[in-house]
């Protein structure tokens, strides 16, 4: 970690420092950037970084090479990712033995190692730079722009890329009201799920009575299948801190909190470093940049409760209590944490703020649709070719995200649905793929933007089982405070269990709909009110699958055990005996050169034969 002894006492200090850095940067002509986001790190990128450092140290004196750890590039599918400067040469799926070659050929020799470049699966063209890859082409990276470029563990990198310039501008030349107006002009809406206008929230909090006010960054990213906030906190923590500083100035707050999920250790580590560096530089603390504005931030780790993503539950947790939401007839902007006016925004919302100040609200508002401005980061995952983090302008169609960026459904399967919005969202079928992605369109389709999970499902996915998965998740995570959520979810799960077990009764779908309506109308918090969305949206678009389970005792996707059988295709069977050996109940008979047969009476439908068969001769029918 580079320690920095500079203490900034005015806005121009930052500018001068950035200038100094950029001239110094030009001297370091050669750089190797290794992604250490969770995805790449899991595939051994930290070791790659060490090897590049060693290579850089051993190289001759006249070549100055800098090896650098950077945050997530988003293309996690192709990790570990290594980018070499000059030329931004983008290497993917790099392994330890490749380091020497990259160093010798590219860093020293200036030649490209062809085999490590990304190859377009359709055209076969090799891409030298990230921007030549379809995955990145369609993206517009404002929030993620510096991810993959800067070392998140050092503040100097952030400042070199224009970091804290927005704060300097705000403190030296803008009144709090002007800041709020700028955010209003930008049309920024909360990225955590609700889509509430950020400026309106800020203004309400600013105008609320009381001298002590709090700002909170909600980093309790609990939606399964979503990791945007994780990557921002890990890859560019200072952008969140700068956003909070600007917000606190606008609102009139001196104390902020970042609430991070317990499952995100690296995010906590990077945020802690960032906060302590910002304090050392005088960017957090008393009289920031020589102004009368003082502000500091504390980090709290969550305890592992999904409900704490709800604002009032999160505040209860910050008060050291169990995370139970309360009714919101008094808004948190008036009485939130410790009954003081509190403004809570999501990680991505905060990270957008410096960009809005730097670009100007108007230019930010040029991106997006009429009512949804700017970009949104999605985690595009599931049964799609290119999984990873993508940042796209609002208003792009689902089809472009899935087909063009995601490369379509993997393994040649056909698309069935895309799930957005996490457990409070819904499943959108193929006929609506041309819908524009913004807050209101997705809600119209019975789903929601949510925090940005986008999970692609193919023909092999049983939609009843998907509804059951989310219902089970929510039942486990229900805090239990209000009866509709606590009992309603358990009851709905009971009905769904029965359906997927082949014991569904006629009228079960209507029963689910009745319970869903009850939940929506009577649950205490937003999580409870939306908890039936996965069920409602799957009934809306995939009613036939429910009916097949209930009336025909058949699972069309062949996922629900007991609602389909295994058979061996006698033509594809090579009589190798593997299935026979692995069957736990000896239900398979056969001989050498004689195709094997499954005794349906004995078969327990465990699926072992289907998994083990090397010739895909075991079929689900």
């Amino acid at each position, binding site marked *: 970690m580079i320690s920095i002894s500079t203490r900034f006492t005015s806005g121009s200090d930052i500018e001068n420092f950035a200038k100094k850095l950029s001239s110094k940067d030009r001297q370091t002509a050669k750089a190797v950037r290794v992604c250490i986001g*969770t*995805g790449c*790190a*899991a*595939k051994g990128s930290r070791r790659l970084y060490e090897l590049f450092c060693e290579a850089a140290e051993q190289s001759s004196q006249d070549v100055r090479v800098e090896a650098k750890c950077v945050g997530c590039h988003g293309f*996690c*599918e192709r*990790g570990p990712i290594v980018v070499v400067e000059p030329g931004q040469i983008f290497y993917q799926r790099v392994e330890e033995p490749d380091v020497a070659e990259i160093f010798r050929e590219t860093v020293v020799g200036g030649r490209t190692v062809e085999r490590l470049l990304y190859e377009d699966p359709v055209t076969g063209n090799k891409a030298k730079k990230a921007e030549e890859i379809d995955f990145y082409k369609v993206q517009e990276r404002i929030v993620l722009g510096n991810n993959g470029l800067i070392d998140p563990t050092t503040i100097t990198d952030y400042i070199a890329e224009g970091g804290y310039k927005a704060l300097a501008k705000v403190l030296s030349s803008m009144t709090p009201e002007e800041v709020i107006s700028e955010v209003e002009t930008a049309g920024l809406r909360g990225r955590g799920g609700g889509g509430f206008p950020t400026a309106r929230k800020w203004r309400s909090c600013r105008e609320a009575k009381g001298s002590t006010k709090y700002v909170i960054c909600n980093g309790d*990213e*609990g*939606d*399964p*299948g*979503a*990791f945007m906030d*994780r990557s921002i906190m890990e890859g560019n923590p200072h952008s969140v801190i700068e956003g909070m500083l600007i917000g606190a100035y606008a609102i009139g707050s001196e104390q902020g909190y970042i609430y991070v*999920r*317990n*499952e*995100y*250790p690296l995010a906590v580590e990077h945020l802690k470093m960032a906060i302590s560096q910002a304090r050392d530089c005088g960017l957090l603390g008393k009289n920031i940049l020589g102004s009368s504005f003082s502000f500091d931030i504390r980090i*709290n*780790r*969550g*305890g*592992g*409760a*999904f409900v704490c993503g709800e604002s009032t539950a999160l505040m209860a*947790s*910050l*008060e*050291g*209590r*169990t*995370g139970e939401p309360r009714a919101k007839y008094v808004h948190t902007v008036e009485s939130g944490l*410790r009954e003081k006016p509190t403004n809570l925004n999501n990680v991505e919302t905060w990270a957008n703020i410096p960009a809005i100040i730097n670009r100007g609200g108007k230019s930010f508002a040029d991106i997006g649709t009429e009512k949804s401005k700017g970009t949104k980061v999605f*985690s595009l*995952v*599931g*049964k799609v070719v290119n*999984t*990873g983090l993508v940042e796209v302008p609002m208003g792009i169609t689902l089809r472009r995200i899935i087909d063009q960026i995601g490369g379509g459904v993997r393994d040649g399967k056909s698309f069935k649905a895309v*799930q957005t919005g996490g457990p409070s969202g819904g499943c959108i079928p193929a006929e609506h793929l041309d819908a524009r992605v913004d807050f209101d369109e997705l809600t119209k389709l019975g789903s929601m933007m949510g925090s940005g*999970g986008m*999970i692609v*499902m193919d023909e092999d*996915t049983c939609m009843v089982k998907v509804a059951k*998965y*989310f219902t089970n*998740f929510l039942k486990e*995570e229900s*805090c239990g405070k209000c009866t509709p959520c606590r009992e309603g979810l358990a009851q709905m799960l009971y009905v769904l269990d029965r359906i997927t077990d082949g014991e569904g009764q006629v009228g079960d779908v209507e029963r689910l709909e009745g319970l869903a309506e009850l939940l929506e109308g009577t649950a205490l918090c937003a999580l409870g009110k939306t908890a039936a969305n996965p069920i409602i949206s799957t009934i809306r678009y995939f009613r036939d699958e429910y009916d097949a389970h209930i009336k025909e005792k058949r699972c069309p996707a062949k996922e629900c055990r007991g609602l389909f059988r295994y058979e061996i295709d006698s033509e594809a069977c090579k009589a190798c005996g593997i299935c026979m050996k692995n069957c*736990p*109940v000896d239900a398979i008979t056969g001989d050498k050169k004689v195709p094997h047969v499954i005794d349906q009476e004995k078969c*327990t439908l*465990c*699926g072992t034969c289907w*998994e083990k068969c090397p010739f895909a001769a075991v079929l689900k029918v």
Partner: protein
Amino acid sequence: MAKDNNILEQIVDRYDGEVGMLIPMMQDLQAEHGYLPPDHLRSLAKLLELPLSRLYAVATFYSSFRLAPRGAHDVSLCMGTVCFLKGSSAISEAISREFRVEPGGTTRDRLFSFQAVNCVGACALAPVMVVDGKYYDGVTPDSALEILHKLSPDEENAETTTKGGTV
């Protein structure tokens, strides 16, 4: 115990005795011991002048707190949506069957504690298993068992008695 009390006092001081910081305090206490020993919870309640029930409520509400000692290793299997779609429930079943441990439990020999966790946010790697902080990607039932068997050579014996059991 005197030493333990000392640690507790340090933890409380770290947060200026602020009751609002109860959760971080309990996290620190758990970091010391791997779980929340009941007598320590009692002492902490006394130090903070809170009823023990309040600490117990917090300890049982949040899934990351444990009231029993853990195994030598920490195994977390991701049950997020993508991991689920890619078969994590089959992995969970395989681990439970092989090591006779349910999610949330610890193996009888205390080799590892097994938890099925909500999304770890590494969806591109699905299905994901995290063992002592190390992420394993694209895990299958077989590869998961292989990874866990390597945790201790003593496990060889357990393997022969449980493999091939009924489903």
